[in-house]
């Protein structure tokens, strides 16, 4: 029972209270860049959930069984970014071979994910917050879920926004940032949630 409540509070924290995009400012580039259409937002979201869960798993294992025993924790940044880069490449190749349909949907987004700071961010946070193996995997999954949630909300708003009237200078990126600000204001309301 205690385990379940721990997972629940982990989920609430990662998805709402400390949302990666709106509260921690991680993964803003895809959030602004890939939120023009609902379909592509969904594809990107799925790819990010997948890679974040995998990255959390592998970076945790590398930290615990390679970097700490060898006392080379200072190589953490280099080791993690290389792990993520090769992981993304590997995932891309496996999906291409085994599930062509899925590859068609996610393919274009996968290379972009290497430089998505949310992925490296969640890997480093797992270590900083001293989560155990199961918690780290779940944290990666929930963080990806939180990212997808706001990405899809944003895409929904921006599809409608195309038809709205506004000053010419505000079109495109500027208004997207303002919308993000309004969403962040709403998410600030979750800050009081505690379990």
């Amino acid at each position, binding site marked *: 029972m205690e385990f379940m409540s721990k997972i629940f509070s982990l989920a609430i924290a990662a998805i709402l209270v400390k949302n990666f995009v709106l509260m921690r400012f991680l993964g803003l580039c895809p959030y602004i860049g890939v939120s023009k259409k609902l379909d592509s937002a969904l594809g990107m979201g799925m790819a990010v959930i997948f890679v974040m869960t995998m990255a959390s798993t592998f970076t945790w294992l590398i930290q615990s069984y390679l970097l700490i025993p060898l006392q080379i924790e200072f190589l953490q*940044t280099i080791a993690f970014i290389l792990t993520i880069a090769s992981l993304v490449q590997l995932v891309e190749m496996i999906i291409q071979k085994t599930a062509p349909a899925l590859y068609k949907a996610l393919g274009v987004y996968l290379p972009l994910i290497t430089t998505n*700071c949310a992925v490296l961010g969640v890997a480093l946070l797992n270590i900083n917050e001293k989560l155990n193996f199961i918690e780290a995997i779940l944290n990666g999954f929930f963080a990806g879920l939180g990212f997808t949630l706001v990405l899809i909300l944003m895409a929904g708003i921006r599809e409608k926004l195309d038809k709205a009237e506004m000053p010419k200078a505000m079109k495109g990126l500027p208004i997207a940032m303002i919308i993000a600000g309004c969403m962040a204001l709403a998410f600030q309301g979750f800050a009081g949630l505690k379990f």
Partner: protein
Amino acid sequence: MSMIKEFSKGLIKENPVFIMALGLCPTLAVTTSVQNAIGMGIAATFVLVCSNVIISLIKNFIPTKIRIPSYIVVIASFVTIVDLVMHAYFPMLHKNLGLFIPLIVVNCIILGRAEAFAGKNNVIKSLADGVGMGFGFTLALIVIGGIREIIGAGQFLGYNVLPLSYKPVLAAILSPGAFLVMGLLMGLMKLLKK
């Protein structure tokens, strides 16, 4: 002459933050105060200049196919240096910037300049480009940090600049303020460009 051109384009004309919208994550995350903004700007500039120089030196030895991973390793090495030096000599700043120091690795400005400029140009030009882009980034951080600090705390670099009767708007320092200030500044830049 060309050096000055490579240097100055990063400041305004091709400003990495306002014009090219690169490196948004650190820009919004660390600009809660001018002090943090300057710290982040200097750290990123150091990494950008060093990686630009090294990459332009070794560009002929790197096979095209594995150039991106090679660039990332070079960048990550310099980020590790910055991380360790800052931890040793500026522990407060290191604590404030926190997660965003290792995340300089995935800052798109640095990889972007490596790919678009340093991998194709000579050392001197790459150096000038790195310094210019770094200063442009720092400048943008200081502008955003300044606005947020003045509105959100009534201070600039820790000194009170507004009368004491001014009630700080806390939201400007919290995350919504970052997005709103950034959006309005981007709109302003677009308006001025026309």
